[in-house]
């Protein structure tokens, strides 16, 4: 498929010129095109924030829900129609702050969704407060003396809870980011892609250059199947590792675990349920 299959005419994009979000959008569109995922077969679920506006900017089904709440609807969608490719995409504040509990439990639940986080280490849309991933000392109008909380480490968390797939990318490298997104989408089960994304308006510290200087791709010898190694990698900071950091042992997805798709692949929502008789039977047992 061609990338322009996702192009929309005449849209007014609310992102700032130069923002890393544009790069991510490009990588995502390319990844989808190369995987031949049609807009008709794709649902992008997002929360609220600058990153979360992404489904308004390309052709796809979308559920742009509440701040912090992209993962639950994504899970609900997948449960009743596993045939759809589902991406849950939002910012770092959305996914790790307001939505932290869903992040934790989505990893455990393992729906076959791709979870993309635009990690700019700041709350963009609300104009520059610290996010969970803001680095020590980061000053904002609210964190006037600089951030003092331990920066949230999504990769380490994912490894700690045996996520089925966890990767980190950098928006500055569209090609590699595309490759990583492709792997995540192709992976069966929950797949985390945390993408370093420069925010040119509110994060003057973690710039394109900073990310470039402070990241390094995993080399070919790296074994993402080794959980302990993955944990070590996820703790490294300067440079931060880029690439697929962890792939967990094979396990059933959430949809498989529901147990209703073993024989019948038809999504629940398309089934002609005939319940009269079953109900009759059940009530007899009362």
């Amino acid at each position: 498929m061609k990338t322009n299959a996702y192009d929309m005419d005449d849209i007014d994009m609310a992102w700032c010129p130069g923002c890393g979000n544009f790069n991510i959008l490009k990588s995502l569109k390319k990844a989808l095109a190369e995987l031949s995922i049609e807009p008709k077969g794709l649902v992008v679920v997002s929360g609220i924030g600058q990153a979360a506006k992404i489904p308004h900017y390309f052709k796809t089904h979308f559920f742009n829900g509440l701040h912090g709440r992209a993962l639950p609807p994504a899970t609900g969608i997948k449960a009743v129609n596993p045939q759809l490719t589902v991406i849950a995409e939002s910012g770092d504040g959305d996914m790790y702050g307001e939505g932290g509990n869903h992040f934790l439990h989505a990893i455990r639940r393992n729906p076959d969704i791709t979870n993309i986080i635009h990690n700019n280490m700041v709350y963009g849309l609300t104009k520059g407060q610290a996010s969970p991933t803001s680095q020590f000392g980061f000053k904002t109008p609210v964190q006037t003396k600089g951030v003092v909380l331990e920066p949230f480490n999504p990769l380490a968390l994912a490894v700690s809870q045996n996520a089925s797939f966890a990767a980190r990318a950098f928006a500055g490298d569209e090609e590699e980011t595309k490759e990583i997104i492709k792997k995540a989408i192709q992976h069966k089960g929950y797949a985390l892609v945390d993408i370093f994304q420069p925010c040119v308006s509110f994060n003057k510290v973690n710039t394109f250059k900073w990310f470039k200087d402070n990241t390094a791709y995993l080399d070919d010898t790296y074994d993402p199947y080794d959980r302990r190694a993955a944990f070590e990698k996820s703790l490294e900071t300067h440079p931060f590792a880029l690439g697929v950091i962890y792939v967990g042992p094979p396990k059933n997805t959430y949809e498989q675990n529901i147990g209703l798709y073993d024989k019948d692949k038809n999504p629940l929502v398309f089934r002609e349920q005939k319940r009269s008789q079953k109900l009759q039977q059940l009530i007899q047992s009362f």
Partner: protein
Amino acid sequence: MSSNQNKRKDVSIVICGAAGQGIKTVEKLLVHNFSHSGFHVFSTKEYMSRVRGGTNSVSIRVSSQKAAALKDRIDILLPLHSEALGHLEKRISSETIVIGDKEKICKDCPTQIKQFIDVPLEDLARDIGGKIFINIIAAGIISGILKLDLDKMKKDVKDFFSQKDKQIVEKNIQSISQGYSKGEKFSDQKGISFDLTPWTEIKNQVLINGAEAVGFGALAGGCDFLSSYPMSPSTGVLVFISQHAHKFEVAAEQAEDEISAINMALGASYAGARSLVTTSGGGLALMGEGISLAGMIETPVVIHVAQRPGPATGLPTRTEQGDLELVLHAGHGEFPRIILAPGSLEDAFSLTQKAFDLADKFQIPVFILTDQFFMDSYYNIPAPDFQNVQANKHIIKTENDYKRSLITKDGISPRGIPGYGEGLVGVDSDEHDESSHITEDLDLRTQMAEKRLKKMDQIKKQAIPPELVGPEDYRNLIIGWGSTLHVINEALDVLGLKKTAFLHFKQVYPLPDETKIYLEKADQIVIAEHNATSQFKKLIKLETGIDISKTILKYNGLAFSVEEMAEKINHALEQED
């Protein structure tokens, strides 16, 4: 008791003991056998929020006529531990026959007790194998007194304990038998007997509780997705559906919290499912934002709220109708909703089923508002009609130019779902254009707000009318909603007032227009609710302008009894205006 004239046609049996003593098992065994024997049976529980200890009771009514409300009067009381008599003191009268271990149970016995049948329950149980058999012996005694079918009883005991050791099963059967013969003996020796006429039709009826009725309604309503977080007293519905999820092809998920539950449900609905969430007040208080989202993205969802006393954790296992105003206003901003409040088990079934249709039709959140009393009460009803269970989800196959938020005359946009048709289906929690893309066009905002609210016209027109029980030419009108249906009905039966009728609301929001007409016809109006601030009275005032001056309010966590309701209605009607 000499003549049948004087014998009760309605027996009230109470078993009282600690959590862990198995009084629920007694309840289960008895109610099924009563109903099997052709009697009407009603059973309700009041219990503490703990797993062991404390003092809980089950009140069972066996009757020749339909009985579906709590009576204070106790005919036969089986106290299983020493706190029981104190706990029930107010309900015990000289007519109450107390059966139990006098020495153990009756340290300082309420003086009104005139009939005590002393049975060494503990010794009997110990002889069989241990204290744990006390409850089954007790069940046996009652079966014996009422001369139930012992074989059936034994078979039920066997089935009930089928997962256990053979030996345990045997001992339970022994317990039931021993109790039964004791009971028979008492009945004969002490002349305990009742005028219960069996009615064969009952055997074809089903005995279910509120949680099951809501559950059946949901299954009949086409529910194929459930996400919830456990919370008393709503968990029964979660359990019921989970138990039958596989067979009925329902994806049922225990969410990590209530926020996830409502948002998962909306995701599933967006994709075309019929989604249910079940919770209680505290859980609902967490779902406000999600409910508002449902309003904004015009995505159907059915939310069952089983009320318990608040604020905060309150009394987790008790009953109240204190969350009406929360359900009315949960969620920020302005959007339509419907609130249904079943009065009977039949209502619970039909309204829950209907809720899914309404939700899909209007693309809104629809609430089923029940309470702990309702959830935990059993009685027999004719089996619901399952013929008409084909759902119309109001879903269209989309075209290429499909617009999910199309502005239409009646405010309802044709509902597409992703993956069905050629169109793209978007929903957005921000204000949006017809394609659901985020907008800051403020004229469009006004149109969209009006589009959403416009649906209220149709919704109101189709509101379920209140049910009038009693004379059409009433002068006094009693108002109730939800779970107080039967207790008010029976209280009015008892009172036998000529010019008094009862208006029961099973849809509490929006109220249909005839509400006002009903109210204006009355000289005196009395409203009864399980809360402290008469929330439904306020809603009626708001919707009709009529300010009801007389209220019957109870908010200690226990359900109204028939006697109490009768007395309070009487009192209210006699009061000066």
